[in-house]
């Protein structure tokens, strides 16, 4: 029974924390909160020099060939730092889709560029009018010897920072879901920012009008998409865990030093119990997440789905509340732009429903464990 991180994983965490403290300070994030691209080029370059975009990519394609636990450790740190980088999109979500679906030849073309950070790739799976990627209205047909995409995807994380997008669409010939690679600058692709509460992670809307695209692999992609999205879910939970943990620590530190009625507010039981409840939600989330990350590399697709649904259901229900309660503990100053705690809360809000919020994930879990 070993639930511990390895020494190498601890080193990855410590090294990345130090790197982000110097290369991605909150002052830098604050300076670009209103930039619709939301992507610090220098930070991305630094991450690429550390080899992080290729963390999951096999060594034969120029990556580090590491696993989901390392990916989780990295994302937890990026979330903790509120790092404005398209790392989750490109290094986890897009990379996982390519690994799950692309042909060997396509992988040889895409993975080295993804690993080097030369190609920033986002994923476009959500649609405003459909709550499940399986039932989306975006379609793909062949015309003039190429696939053409038709439809509208939103919200798309890092839509304006991406060089290319992996688009979930219905292959009309096969009448089944598939994934298509579309250059962001291609004719027929129109991107617009969706200004949101979270300035650390930008979202956008992308319209496709006969946009030329490349199909990843062949056949019904449903199982591959679902497994890649489950990995992406776990990664997003890791990012959110980092942010929620930091919000909790800020509130805890503040409760120790803020004096009212001649005593630190952290001596009041109502504040203490609130903090213990936050700690409890975080520790449960960490145990569940680390198990899920382990399962992603060691268990079958059903177990991965079960673990990912649990992790996402728990985190999406608890983390926004942790952010909200952190603001509550700060009181009036927590409501000011000047104090940082709101930045974490907002990161948690952009996480909450991104890949299925509490109700949808509980229903997915019920289908796995109750209907079985």
């Amino acid at each position: 029974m070993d639930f511990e991180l390895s020494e190498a994983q601890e080193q990855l965490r410590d090294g990345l924390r130090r790197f982000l403290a110097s290369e991605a300070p909150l002052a830098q994030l604050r300076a670009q909160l209103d930039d619709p691209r939301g992507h610090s080029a220098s930070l991305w370059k630094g991450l690429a020099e550390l080899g992080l975009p290729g963390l999951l990519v096999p060594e034969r394609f120029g990556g580090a060939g590491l696993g989901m636990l390392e990916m989780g450790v990295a994302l937890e740190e990026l979330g903790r730092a509120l790092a404005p980088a398209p790392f989750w999109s490109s290094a986890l979500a897009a990379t996982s889709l390519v690994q799950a679906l692309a042909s060997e030849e396509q992988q040889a073309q895409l993975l080295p560029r993804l690993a080097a950070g030369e190609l920033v790739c986002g994923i476009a799976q959500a649609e405003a009018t459909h709550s499940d990627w399986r039932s989306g209205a975006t379609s793909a047909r062949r015309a003039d010897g190429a696939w053409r995409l038709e439809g509208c995807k939103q919200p798309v994380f890092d839509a304006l920072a991406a060089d290319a997008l992996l688009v979930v669409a219905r292959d009309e010939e096969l009448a089944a879901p598939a994934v298509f690679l579309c250059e962001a600058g291609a004719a027929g692709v129109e991107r617009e920012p969706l200004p949101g509460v979270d300035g650390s992670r930008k979202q956008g809307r992308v319209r496709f009008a006969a946009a030329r695209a490349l199909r990843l692999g062949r056949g019904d992609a449903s199982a591959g998409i679902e497994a890649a999205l489950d990995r992406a879910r776990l990664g997003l939970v890791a990012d959110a865990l980092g942010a929620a943990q930091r919000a909790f620590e800020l509130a805890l530190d503040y409760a120790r030093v803020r004096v009212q009625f001649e005593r630190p507010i952290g001596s009041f039981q109502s504040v203490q119990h609130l903090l213990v409840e936050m700690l409890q939600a975080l520790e449960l989330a960490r145990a569940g997440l680390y198990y899920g990350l382990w399962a992603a590399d060691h268990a079958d697709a059903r177990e991965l789905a079960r673990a990912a649904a649990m992790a996402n259901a728990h985190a999406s229900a608890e983390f926004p509340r942790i952010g909200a309660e952190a603001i509550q503990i700060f009181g009036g100053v927590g409501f000011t732009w000047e104090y940082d705690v709101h930045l974490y809360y907002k990161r948690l809000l952009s996480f909450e429903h991104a890949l299925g919020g509490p109700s949808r994930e509980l229903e997915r879990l019920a289908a796995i464990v109750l209907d079985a």
Partner: protein
Amino acid sequence: MDFSYPPEAEAFREELRAWLERALEPRFRAEEGAIGASPERIARLREWNRRLADAGYAAIAWPREFGGRGAGALEQVVFTEEMHRAGAPPTLNPIGLANIAPAIMQHGSDAQKQRFLRPMLRGDEIWCQGFSEPGAGSDLASLRTSAVREGEVFVVNGQKVWNTLGEVADWCELLVRSDPAAPKHRGISCLLVDMKLPGIEVRPIRSITGDTEFSEIFLRDVRVPAGMLLGPLHQGWKVAMTTLNNERGGVATLHLMVRKKIQELFALARRTERDGRPLAADPLLRQRLARLYLDGEYLKLLSERALSALVHGRAGAEGSLVKLVWSQTQQQLYEVAAELLGPEAATHALGWQRVHARSLSIAGGTTQVNKNIVAQRVLGLPRSA
């Protein structure tokens, strides 16, 4: 990260399984222990307990010299898992084995060890604790039951309450105020008291379920031989808080029964039809059931992480949260059960279990006191006023 158990632990599992197949006859199988049990059931539990003791399984965490096997945390978890799996009844003497024996082993005289440990292990003598008083609950150290030395005896007067197994116990580990002038933690002593001594009266307390699962103990001029003082005079607080250093595997298995009950609830939801469909197909109930399932699984993972921290010597908050999460999850289970049962909720057996579950956030430290402790010891917040 690796969720398998080491080969030694798995070898122990195999050995135990083989033994259980032979030794655990159907008549021994039971879900409930000695608390509130009839004399016949006590006799049966005692017979089972002797079998365990003869095979060296009655208290595996105990050191070998006292009849245990010095088992580490992982072996203890394996033991509990296998007992649960086989449907073996809980131990007859839970408080004695886990809470009182460590104090006797560490602080007792040779004569006390000789006299008490073996019969406790075999279940020949059942033990209870006399700690709480009507005026000393969460604030235990304010206890007032007095012990005054007169020659070769302590004369004890006072009242104890919430004594689990009090009505069947042969012996009691009793906390008394031996120095009323000292600061409250430093004037307490620990006595080993024969429950048959004159002046002791045990009255069962009827709980909100109508059953009696604990008692109150009245002590009037009870003359306890001075040789029954456990550990140094006035240091009873420290003596009573003694635990075995390896006795923390227990928290890692609290999830077993909860998760079993959750599966029973799932089965109920699948087989019960209402409005022409199984309850398990109702979208609102599915949400409640899935969340409950998640809570049970996360209790397990939190416990396993606590166990891992223990085994690997990492300081972590998990262990101190397990009891909180366990009591919340167990209580929530009955709330969900009531939601499933609807109008039947208050007349079903689960309704009585729901009432009983109120004790889970009170016994062994209330939820509120636990949160205070975690806030101060784990989060390092200042003591509350």
